[in-house]
Each structure stands twice: as structure tokens, then as C-alpha cells.
């Protein structure tokens, strides 16, 4: 699934997305770092909501689409600008070039070429 943030595309495996919805009432209780907007209830469970813009140090208001994403560290909410399309591909992502990111911070699984643009494949387990 391709989502957009500040005009650029990111991908997340669709089998990791439990729900695409609109932001709902959030509970803030101060125990989360500032990249989280609060917690939302989804299917009877409260989960932290990551503001992806803030994590990525992009300016502007939090996104208007809420994704519920299954990660290796539990389900989280994720605020993004929009979901743009579903990409069905057998291609393996291309590796991120060396020397771009600190190797100890695995935020991406790689890169897809898509319609003349580069789409970054998020590592949903590495974002937390």
C-alpha cells in the first residue's frame, strides 16, 4: 500500500495494515514521546498513535488518515496524509544506498521505482 506524506510516497506491506480510517478521539496521558499524538481505541484495545510527519521531522499538521498497523512490537496507529494506491508487485525492493542512514536505525526496507518516482518501503518494526 502506498501512502503519501508531504508529497512523497512511502510503502507499507498491505498485510500489516489492519484498518484505514479517520483520526478519532485520542487520549493523552503524557507517557509517550512527542512523536506520538496519544492513544486510540481499536477493537477494544488502546494503542499509541505515531505522527509520521513529526517522526520524519516534516513540518505541518498531522496527517488526516489514521492507519492501524501491525508491528512486531504490537499494533500502533499511524497518521499519514493520504493513502494513494495499492501496488501489486513481485519485485524485490532495491537496497537503500550506503552512507545515507545510520546503519543502526533501520527505518526502511528499501526502495521501489513506481511511475517515475522513488517510493520508500517503510520498516514498520523499525520505526518505534
Amino acid at each position, binding site marked *: 500500500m502506498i501512502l503519501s506524506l508531504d508529497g512523497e510516497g512511502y510503502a507499507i506491506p498491505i498485510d500489516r495494515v489492519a484498518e484505514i480510517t479517520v483520526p478519532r478521539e485520542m487520549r493523552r496521558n503524557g507517557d509517550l514521546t512527542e512523536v506520538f499524538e496519544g492513544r486510540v481505541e481499536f477493537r477494544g484495545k488502546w494503542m499509541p498513535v505515531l505522527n509520521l510527519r513529526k517522526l520524519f521531522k516534516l513540518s505541518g499538521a498531522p496527517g488526516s488518515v489514521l492507519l492501524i498497523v501491525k508491528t512486531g512490537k504490537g499494533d500502533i496507529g499511524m497518521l499519514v496524509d493520504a493513502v494513494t494506491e495499492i501496488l501489486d508487485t513481485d519485485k524485490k525492493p532495491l537496497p537503500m544506498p*550506503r*552512507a*545515507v*542512514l545510520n546503519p543502526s*536505525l533501520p527505518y526502511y526496507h528499501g526502495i521501489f521505482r513506481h511511475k517515475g518516482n522513488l517510493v*520508500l518501503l517503510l520498516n514498520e518494526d523499525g520505526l518505534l
Partner: protein
Amino acid sequence: MTAGYLLFLLTGRIFGAELRGAVEIMPWRQARRVPLSYSYVEGLIDYRGVIYPVFNLFQRLSLKPLEPIGFIAEGPAQPAAPQSIILLEENKMLFGITVDSVVKMAKIDELSPVPQQTRGLDPQYIKGMAYDDNQEIIILDFERLLFHAG
């Protein structure tokens, strides 16, 4: 040993990059940004089947614009926005750098040692110096500068 170099300007200094493989020069463009990358990474450029990381050389070298000589400038000098991107190959690494402008290609016979006074540049990133028409040229060690960080 004579080698070919591409000379370029950055903040009034002339730098040189040894030409070992393919080289491309293109007008500056916004690269595809990579959030949470190193601060001096401008992003990625997909060019002729290769995804190049593009590094902002001004930021990587922590350069300051040179002080004007002989007159008093109005306010602090601001770095000019980079005008060009050079895509280079060094030790099989493909990468891009942003520069103020490209000067020319030059043949250089031998590099001179790095002087004591490097005007705010970290000497570990300098391979050597060269002189062309009495102009000082700083030859950078890109492998050390870009691929040994972090």
C-alpha cells in the same frame, strides 16, 4: 602519475574530484528526500538505472563562506544555493554531490601534501593539494568523507 580531475567551486574555494569512472553533471534539482537520514544527505536521484545518494557537500564539510577580502560586506555572507549536482564514482561507490558550480576538467601530475593551514577544513578529508594557474585546488577524499561516517 597523471590523473584527470573535475574541478568545482564551493564557497569560493576550488575543489577537485578524481575522475575514476562515469561522471555526470546536472543542474541542481530536489532529490527524493529520505527522512531520518544524515543531515547532509539531500536525498536520492534515480538516474539512468542507478539510485544515487546525493550529499550536500557544504554541510558535510561544515564550511563557512570565505570572508570577503578588501572590502566590508553588508552583513554576513550567505552560502549560495548549490547550482549543480555532480554524479561520481569512487572505489565503486556511486554518489552525487552538490556544488556551487563546475569549473573544468584538468590533468594533474602529482598531488602536493596537505598544508598545516587548511582554512577551516578538516585535513583528514583532504587527499592532497594541486595548483593550476597558481590557484590552489583542494582534492577531497570522498571515501573517507562520505562512507566512513556514523
